[in-house]
């Protein structure tokens, strides 16, 4: 295997390729990240591998000619399934723990959806109590409106409107009386 040396740090070509393909462990990735910043030639090489990896990942078995595909991939191509089937197959083929977690989650979802149905959530007694409480709240709101109207009549109309008008009328009356007395005298 070809080995490169950068500032006393050895880096194999395999490590570089595995990092570009996203398979390297975290320490190798960090090491390459550090070295890429220091050495532009390494960065260029890494980018080249990375773009190749991206191109390869985008190729689906269906696009490959039969002659280029190994037998294992040919079999995989035949087993190409839609998304839902893949998930269901995954449930059967994979270990029990993730499958169990998935089923529990499905159960919780169904339970919460069913819980939204009001008929199943409340008893007759609860509905009757709610009916009474609705009415009580509406009565309360209405009583506040009635009090407000009373206050409006009492304070605004009598104190702020009627009383000043009365006072004004009294002043005019007094003034007229004074004038009449002056004329008589």
């Amino acid at each position, binding site marked *: 295997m070809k080995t490169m040396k950068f500032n006393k740090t050895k880096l194999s070509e395999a490590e570089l390729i595995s990092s570009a393909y996203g398979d390297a462990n975290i320490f190798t990735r960090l090491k390459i990240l550090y070295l890429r910043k220091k050495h532009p030639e390494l960065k260029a090489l890494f980018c080249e591998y990375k773009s190749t990896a991206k191109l390869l990942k985008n190729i689906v078995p269906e696009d490959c000619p039969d002659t280029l595909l190994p037998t294992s991939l040919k079999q995989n191509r035949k087993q190409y399934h839609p998304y839902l089937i*893949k998930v269901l197959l995954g449930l059967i083929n994979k270990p029990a723990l993730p499958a169990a977690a998935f089923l529990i989650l499905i159960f919780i979802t169904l339970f*919460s959806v069913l819980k939204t149905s009001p008929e199943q959530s409340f008893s007759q007694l609860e509905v009757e109590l709610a009916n009474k*409480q609705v009415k*009580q709240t509406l009565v309360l*709101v209405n009583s506040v409106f009635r009090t407000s109207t009373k206050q409006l009549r009492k304070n605004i109309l009598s104190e702020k409107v009627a009383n000043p008008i009365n006072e004004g009328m009294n002043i005019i009356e007094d003034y007229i009386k004074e004038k009449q007395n002056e004329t008589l005298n």
Partner: protein
Amino acid sequence: MKHLIKLTLMIFAVNIFILAQHKDYSKETGYIDFGNLEELESGNRVVDVFLEGNLLRLVGKFAENEEPELSEVISGLKLIKAKVLEVTRENEKQLKARVLETENLLKGKNWSMLVRIRDVDEIINVYIKSSSLDKIEGLTVTSINKDEAAFVNIVGDIDLETIGRLSSKFDIPALDRLNGHKR
């Protein structure tokens, strides 16, 4: 395996969405948070009403035949929240402060004032939140006098005229007489 993880995460997100839909009313335009009113409970008389959309729809359905008007009013509502507390020496100042705080909150959220009364013994605030001229989405009533303080928030399509007409028909005791009812 990747598909399974993706689907599990999707279902998990749906679950959170469903659960959030049930309990979070804070995003409703007509909702207002009165804060923790329980800490202000001091007297014996406490009335606490909290009726959510599901239950209100069911009440509306049950009232369809006997009280069609009530059923009509309720069916548009999403939440009814009411709390009536007895005013005592201990909690009077705090309750008044909470009424005024709520008023500032309503003003800050651009609610429209319907009634605002400041008297020596009484404070009354009635605010509405409307999306258009004829559609009210929220009603908030806060009042305090010598005896009791009331905090009411109704969320949903509200028809004030029908509420006024209806409540005068109800032959039921007022909330302040329901001593000891605690939810």
